[in-house]
């Protein structure tokens, strides 16, 4: 049996640790007392019906929202204590978070500069290459298709090799080539010791990469377990029942 870790050791080892995280909007709790942690190389697939609080949770973990109560630390640093912890996080969202008039390379290079990478242009080109969109590097984002914009957006999120990668429906709009590139990039990040949090409605897509799975409903984690304990068919059934109950 492994020796029990002290709270400090657990925080240090965890890439992300959320404790009693609550976020309320006008009194309604969008995220309600969520506690979990992910170590290096772990991937949590997070499922839940619309309005369950998944996107709010991701925005809390990215430092875009401050919690009403509770705390979140990235690599042992409390997220709200400064900008350092934010530098360890990458975020792929519903929106592309790109500047349409700028080229794909300019967008990713700008991010690389904001994260202080030593050779931002080379890092941006490498990220675009990873997402198989380097051949469109000099094309303004507004001229790219939705799928290619999504690839550039993912390149922007991974350019600084984040220790925690938060992905909100990242496969949306991607074709087979883009999906393959994304899966390879996520796998590569995991193998490099990053933790992933993957929000999706597609169970097979989410469970394929996951080491842990969770179902969120009305702001709470109603299931959280290791991937090994998840039986896809019963899990799918339960998820559908939960989604239908909220419809």
């Amino acid at each position, binding site marked *: 049996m492994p020796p029990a870790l002290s709270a400090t050791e657990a925080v240090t080892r965890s890439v992300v640790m959320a404790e009693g995280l609550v976020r309320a909007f006008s009194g309604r709790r969008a995220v309600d007392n969520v506690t979990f942690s992910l170590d290096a190389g772990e991937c949590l697939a997070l499922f839940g019906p619309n309005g369950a609080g998944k996107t709010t949770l991701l925005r809390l973990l990215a*430092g875009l929202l401050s919690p009403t109560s509770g705390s979140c630390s990235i690599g042992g640093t409390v997220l709200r204590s400064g900008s350092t912890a934010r530098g360890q996080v990458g975020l792929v969202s519903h929106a592309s978070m790109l500047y349409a008039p700028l080229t794909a390379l300019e967008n990713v290079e*700008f991010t690389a500069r*904001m994260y202080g990478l030593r050779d931002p242009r080379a890092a941006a080109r490498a990220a675009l290459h990873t997402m198989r969109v380097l051949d469109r590097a000099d094309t303004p984002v507004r001229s790219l298709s939705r799928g290619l914009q999504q690839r550039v957006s993912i390149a922007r999120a991974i350019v600084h090799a984040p220790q925690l990668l938060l992905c909100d429906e990242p496969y949306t709009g991607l074709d087979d080539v883009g999906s393959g590139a994304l899966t390879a990039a996520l796998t590569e990040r995991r193998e490099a010791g990053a933790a992933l949090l993957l929000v999706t409605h597609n169970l097979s897509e989410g469970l394929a990469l996951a080491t842990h799975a969770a179902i969120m409903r009305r702001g709470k984690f109603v299931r959280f377990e290791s991937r090994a304990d998840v039986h896809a068919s019963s899990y799918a059934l339960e998820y559908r029942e939960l989604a239908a109950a909220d419809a």
Partner: protein
Amino acid sequence: MPERNPPGMLHATWLVARKDLAIEFRTRTAFFSALLFALLGLTIFYFAWDPTAVAAIDLAPGVLWVIFVFSGLLGLQRSFSVEQADRAIDALLAAPVDREAIYLGKALANFLFVAAVQAISLPALALFYNLPVSQAFLPIAGIAVLAAIGIVSVGTMFSSMAVNTRLAELLLPMLALPFFIPIVMAAAVSTSRLLAGRPVADVMPWLRILVAFDLVFVVACTLAFPYTLEE
């Protein structure tokens, strides 16, 4: 993991400003709109002006500052709307830089935008109204710079607040214009006196008001900006 050295406040400020200027340079929509507005405004005021009733030297300063303020608002409006389009603001806020640097970068880009419009509008005004600007050019340029700093410091802050509302185009002028009154008053009176051939010492009290306004609002808006981003 790639080697990292997150940018400090000044470097991040410059990165944000350069990005905004690159976007404006690529689209040129706000600059040309503001410039066109300024030149059309000058033209309309010129044809509505009765030189036998009001001397050019009395009318021109008011025209100049009304045009500067409203053309500046066009640029300020765009400052945060480019961030809102595809939620690029989220990527900016998630970056490991101080949020004050985002404000200062936006304000710097807006300042250069307003200054560029002023640099073209001021000679145009002198041409339209046949003003003797040559002897007072440097002091007037100095007033323009001080006024531009005040306008962009307040305007950038309110632009970030207004952009999330449905009536952003209406709300920004409504929020910002009351704060612009001391700037316009000080700048218009100073310009008028300088054009009348009065010495710079004669307008020093008004210049002090401009400097004080700039200092107070640059500091206050920089400190307050991070709180305007809270949801």
